[in-house]
């Protein structure tokens, strides 16, 4: 919305300023020609002039404001006033028998490119940047004069570089070997895969067996440039995979942290852990709806309020479950597995009855949309926020476990329940609180997930098996194991996926985990001890 407004304001400003300078009348007259070809030529000529007035005229043409008098004069009609197309001087008296110039698809396409290109001269940096990006892959040599003009005026180094790349790509078609050589060398800086394809085309032979590019020096330079582009593309590709891997890993970490705590402490796997995520996500949804109705002005900050709400909702449900069901099954881990699965079915159906089976819509706050641009990839803010958030939760968890009394108790009970109980640790309360904590962290994960994916009754199911694998791989009792396993699995999956596909990746990861626990059955970081299971 915003750029569009800016553009129209800019066009309006140009329209006023343009009265001072006139366009080439002959070219303007050709806009009204009978043949489409002549009109296209006129449009290209207007672009090549790089004139601000040309942009205003072309925009008017796109809006259907350009008309033809019976005498063949091209005029622009705004409201009920007519202006001369070349000078923008008002015409009095108003001409009669005006006929609108038909804009067919071919002309519309040409107009779009032309207007886009002419925005290179806009005073607004954002408009120029967008325009420069839009024409980056063009192959229209007619734009060259305009681009050259834009380069000479450009003050922003980023846009300037992009324009130089575009110019160099167009220069490849030049008849002068020197220009081509310079262009090929400039293109070594490119980040575009298309540029690589174009350079590769230079090295091919045509039907008669001679090279497309006759000059050997240019060919050698092209090879060097291709190598350099290749390397850059590869690096940025790996960086992108690393980023998505870390983002997946931090989600797995958020999900698995709570799971690992309860497993380490109580020896039970909570199959309803995924539903704690779901409850957190729905708590976020409810908070969002409350903000929408009662505090629309603060809507952008609903997420901040949703974090404690999601934590509390999941923690309360978790503690209620611990009290009512799980407590009675301690010492029977397999039965706990089944009972918590039952709980998960129950919760899913309950949420379906309350909120409906369809997904609910949780919006990103405006400060979370968009992203950081790096060479040829975009790192979305919501992914970055999730990585940061999970690191924050991890830090809190670590502080809690290593610096507080409850943390000390949790570690004590994890290591030796009977001994801890003997020295006066209230193990039942520790169990309850730790279970609440684990569920609460799952709620936080749900809150985070609501920002990047769909929120529906099945939300928990999609992450839960992967996070079980994290716990199996990481071992229990130490945060470090969970952290390494989660981030490792996330990054590994994202590096494998482009090569073998998502499904085979899942299978391969499972095989790797099974192979790994051949060596270390207790996971990456097992607590050392001399206890033997009964």
């Amino acid at each position, binding site marked *: 919305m915003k750029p569009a407004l800016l553009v129209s304001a800019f066009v309006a400003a140009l329209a006023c300023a343009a009265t001072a300078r006139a366009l080439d009348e002959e070219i303007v007259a050709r806009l009204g020609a009978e043949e489409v070809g002549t009109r296209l030529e006129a449009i290209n000529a207007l672009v090549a002039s790089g004139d601000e007035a040309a942009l205003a005229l072309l925009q008017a043409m796109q809006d259907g404001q350009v008309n033809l008098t019976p005498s063949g004069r091209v005029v622009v009609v705004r409201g009920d006033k007519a202006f001369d197309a070349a000078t923008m001087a008002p015409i009095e008296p108003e001409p009669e028998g005006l006929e609108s110039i038909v804009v067919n698809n071919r002309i519309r396409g040409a107009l779009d490119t032309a207007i886009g290109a002419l925005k290179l001269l806009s005073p607004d940096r954002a408009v120029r940047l967008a325009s420069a990006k839009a024409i980056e892959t063009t192959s229209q040599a007619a734009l060259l004069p305009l681009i050259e003009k834009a380069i000479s005026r450009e003050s922003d180094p980023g846009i300037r570089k992009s324009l130089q790349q575009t110019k160099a790509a167009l220069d490849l078609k030049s008849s002068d070997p020197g220009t081509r050589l310079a262009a090929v060398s400039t293109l070594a800086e490119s980040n575009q895969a298309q540029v690589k394809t174009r350079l590769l085309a230079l090295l091919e032979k045509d039907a008669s067996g001679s090279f497309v590019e006759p000059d050997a020096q240019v060919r050698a330079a092209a090879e060097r440039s291709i190598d350099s582009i290749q390397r850059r593309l590869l690096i940025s590709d790996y960086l992108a995979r690393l980023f998505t891997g870390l983002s997946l890993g931090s989600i797995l970490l958020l999900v698995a942290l709570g799971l690992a705590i309860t*497993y380490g402490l109580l*020896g*039970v*796997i909570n199959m309803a852990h995924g539903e704690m995520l779901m409850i957190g996500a729905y708590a976020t949804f409810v908070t969002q709806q409350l903000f929408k109705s009662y505090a629309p002005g603060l809507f952008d900050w609903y997420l901040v309020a949703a974090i404690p709400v999601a934590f509390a909702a999941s923690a309360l449900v978790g503690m209620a479950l611990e009290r009512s*069901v799980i407590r*009675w*099954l301690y010492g*029977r*881990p*397999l*039965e*706990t*597995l*089944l*009972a918590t*699965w*039952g*709980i*998960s*079915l*129950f*919760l*899913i*159906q*309950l949420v*379906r*009855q309350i909120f409906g089976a369809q997904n609910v819509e949780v919006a990103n706050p405006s400060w979370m949309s968009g992203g950081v641009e790096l060479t040829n990839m975009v790192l979305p803010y919501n992914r970055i926020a999730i990585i940061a958030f999970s690191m924050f939760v991890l830090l809190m968890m670590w502080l809690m476990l290593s610096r507080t009394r409850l943390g000390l108790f949790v570690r004590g009970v994890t290591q030796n329940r009977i001994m801890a109980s003997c020295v006066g640790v209230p193990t039942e309360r520790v169990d309850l609180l730790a279970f609440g904590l684990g569920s609460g962290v799952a709620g936080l994960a749900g809150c985070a997930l609501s920002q990047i994916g769909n929120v529906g009754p099945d939300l928990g199911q999609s992450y839960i*098996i992967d996070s*079980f*694998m994290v*716990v*199996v791989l990481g071992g229990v009792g130490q945060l470090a194991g969970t952290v390494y396993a989660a981030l490792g699995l996330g990054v590994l999956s994202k590096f494998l996926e482009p090569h073998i596909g*998502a*499904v*085979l990746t*899942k*299978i391969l990861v*499972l095989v790797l*985990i*099974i*192979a790994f*626990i*051949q*060596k270390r*059955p207790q996971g990456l970081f097992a607590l050392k001890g001399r206890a*033997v*299971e*009964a």
Partner: protein
Amino acid sequence: MKLEELEMRYVPRIEPLFSGPGWMALGAFALVTLVVLPLLYLLPAADSALHVSSYTITLAGKIMCYCIVAMAMNLIWGYTGILSLGHGVFFALGGYAFGMYLMRQIGREGQYQSDLPDFMVFLDWKAFPWFWTGSEHFLWSATLVILAPGLLALAFGYFAFRSRIKGVYFSIITQAMTFAFMLLFFRNDTGFGGNNGFTDFKRVLGFPITAPSTRAAIFAMTALALIGVVFLTRYLIRSKVGRVLTAIRDSESRLMFSGYNPLGYKLFVWTLSAVLCGIAGALYVPQVGIINPSEMSPANSIEIAVWVAVGGRGSLIGPLLGAAVVNGAKSFFTQTFPEYWLFFLGLLFILVTLFLPRGVIGLLSPARWRRT
């Protein structure tokens, strides 16, 4: 004392295969499923009060397949104490192996009148992939029904038991396994029909598959298989191997200190259990007429565990009872109150584990199952 006397005193007497009432019950079951039901299905006219409908025969046949699965689960969980959350994969593999044969039996009667199954024509494949080789022969398919789940279980079990993965770890790894297989079979390129799986079967061994006589025959075969599994389980549990298995359940460490290596025993019972599941799957597919990857969903596998839990694990008839009751309830709920089925199932999981650790059987004969 002589060795024989020592044995007389300290080695428990081997129990008879079945008690008197046990034999009677088995005989009655065999009579009903092998003679009475098929005859009532085939002979009386459709409007006769004695007539048994196709629906009933199919439902009963389906439930008997589930009973076999429940027995298989009982072997590994009830007697050996290893909870598998991935038995659905073995069931489905057996079903797919036999489904391949049924697909080949369609011949050129598919929608595209091609030698290849419709889904392959749809994918524009020109020939059968290598793993379909020989699937047109009944015997090879029947062998695959045993080999496919058996080999998978053997390989998976070897690596899992060797590194002494047990308890919840083992359970969630088996769950991940079935999940991964489900994803694999959902892919069209895997070569098993993707989403839709196999369906639209026409005939088996040349007989039309929907004909009453064919149905009755498959029904009777399922009943025979179930009776066979009951015999096998009972025989196994009575034997020395069975005693080692229960020892693994009750105290694996103590068994190891006594000089036994549990690996071979676990692997044996795990593979046997998988093979039984595969056979059940192969009998299930011609009766139900479809096999698709949703059979491998983790939820399905964990449901198997609840059949056994409801009936009473570690007992011979408990799992049969559980499979029949839960599936009967499922048929009832999904027809009358579909939205409450998950509530019911969820509560069943919770209540049975909380209040009926020995299942329904524990309720019926409290004296025999009192904790020692």
